[in-house]
């Protein structure tokens, strides 16, 4: 570990004086209607937000969408929503998910300011389920919507979380060819958020 010790010694030797870690105040976002703001943010990032009273209504709303009509291989991690045809828990190798049409995922938390939904490892058998399907649907409770990322990280307690987690905000996209926005780069071509309650 010679390199490690050399680097750390150089950093200590060269360390400048610095301020204390600041209190993160004066930055909180506030919205008169949190859920309306969330729905608008999801739309702004290229997703669709459907507000439904309960899981049965979420299932009906999802089945009414064209993305469901054409979906043969479906993983659902939310019981009663989407009609799973593939049991993700039985899949050993994530490569077997390559031709997945639709994933229905559960988010524990969502952010009104940017439309992001927190999806994490323990509730997912495979990380690939969040990115490999043609389309993704995320089920989130209205009570789990927080105003901004500061509130999100406070609620998450990241140091206590295992494995991995991601904020998913809309469908996969790119603008690498002449700044023209194209939806569906490598990941899901559409992202539908089913907001319950």
């Amino acid at each position, binding site marked *: 570990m010679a*390199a490690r010790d050399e680097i750390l010694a150089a950093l200590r030797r060269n*360390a400048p004086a610095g301020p204390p870690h600041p209190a993160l105040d004066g930055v909180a976002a506030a919205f008169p209607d949190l859920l309306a703001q969330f729905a608008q943010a999801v739309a702004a990032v290229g997703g669709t937000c459907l507000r439904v009273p309960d899981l049965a209504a979420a299932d009906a709303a999802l089945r009414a969408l064209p993305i469901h009509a054409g979906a043969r291989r479906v993983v659902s991690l939310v019981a009663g929503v989407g009609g799973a045809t593939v049991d993700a828990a039985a899949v050993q190798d994530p490569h077997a998910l390559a031709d997945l049409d639709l994933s229905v995922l559960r988010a524990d938390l969502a952010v009104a300011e940017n439309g992001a939904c927190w999806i994490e490892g323990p509730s997912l058998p495979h990380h690939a389920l969040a990115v*490999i399907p043609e389309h993704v649907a995320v089920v989130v409770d209205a009570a789990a919507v927080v105003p901004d990322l500061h509130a999100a990280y406070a609620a998450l307690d990241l140091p206590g979380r295992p494995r991995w987690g991601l904020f*998913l905000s809309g469908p996969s996209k*790119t603008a690498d*060819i002449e700044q023209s926005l194209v939806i569906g780069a490598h990941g899901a071509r559409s992202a539908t958020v089913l907001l319950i309650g």
Partner: protein
Amino acid sequence: MSAPSDAAVAAGAGAPPPVHHPGGRQAGPYPGHPAAAARFTADVARAHWHDESLWFVRVKRDRAAAQLPAWERLRELAEQIKAHALANLAGYLEEFERNATARGATVHWARDAADHNRIVHELLSARGVTRVVKSKSMLTEECGLNPYLEARGVEVVDTDLGERIVQFRGEPPSHIVLPAIHIKKEEIGALFHEKLGTAAGASDPKYLTEAARGHLREKFLAAQAGITGVNFAVADTGAVVVCTNEGNADMGTALPPLHIACMGLEKLVPRAEDLGVFLRLLARSATGQPVTTYSTHFLGPKPGGELHLVLVDNGRSALLARDPFRRALSCIRCGACMNTCPVFRRSGGYSYGTTVPGPIGSVLGPAQGPGAHATLPFASTLCGSCADVCPVRIDLHHQLLAWRRELVAGGHAPAGKTLALRVTAWIFASPWRFAAAGRLARAALRLLPRGLVARLSGAWGRQRELPAPPAESFRDLYRRTHGRP
């Protein structure tokens, strides 16, 4: 900067002669900013188009920033968190290592690019990996990882669409966030026709992106390892955060068992809660989005998989000792300073000859040894727009000015520029000489032929008319109306 011997191996190993693409990187040694920029601006229409493309991104950034009432407070906090982290970097890196290790990741330390490349290659070769997918990482560009691995029989596929385009052309990215911003869609169409068999003459971005999606999907499924960069590493959690819009970092790490994440030492933030500040700033500053589509937090290896974190110094600990330039280590690589810079927009990313171009690259470049990069701090109008948009409030234009002083004092400026500055200083030091020089200049502008005046005024006069000389100086005017001061 990179490992020259290995780069030479790669270039010499039967590599085809470099193809020059319009607006692309020129072959040969870097000639300094003025000469490289002159090549780019020779195509006036392309330079104008490039300028407008970047301004479009700058406007999107402005709109996004204006939507947050707390924008300036967020910038202030980001600046303070980074200053605090840099002042305590050794301790935070140890905390990060402890936490990441406890979560099952393996932490590696690299003194320089050669260490970094060797560590990554050893990880791959020990597992028999010959097919790698890589998401965007300016650090691996800085270290020259691709040619190093390719020379050792490893296929490295850059999976960000813009990066794949420039990789097909044999070029580095020309911009850290928009790697192919200098290339027109018709050129990408022709490139994809050749490489991916798309229809001849097709240039629709949607069609070309779809073709790249299919091509890269095959690469993702075949890869034995995924390499990513790191946007933020969190000391109190041992997590690394990777942000993309395409989902390529997620695709590249979700499938193969081995994930190698490479990061500069300065990517560290102390606490998970700090991410709220930086994620609100990053995408808004970069592209005007409220957040990237995928902001993925890697908190350890996947079940049955491996996560290796390579921490790279490569000059960073030395830069930490240098006031004022150490502040450049706060950079979160959003690219906002490039999009706003009047020089970058008109001269293109390749005119800087560095991995990171633009205003921030003009501060970082000379720190790695002046050489040809001594021209970079002069490639600025010092208008300060870069510092105004910087989400971590790096005082970029002050740093560029400080570099100019240092480079001129160290004899790294061209002889003509040094002489001109000496003569100007001599004139300005005496009121008499200053007044005499003014009289001389006004007379010269009136009497000398236009062509000669243009030549005497150097680069400035090449594309500009000099102003008509005033009939009298301010000094003369004052004396006439108020008497001798």
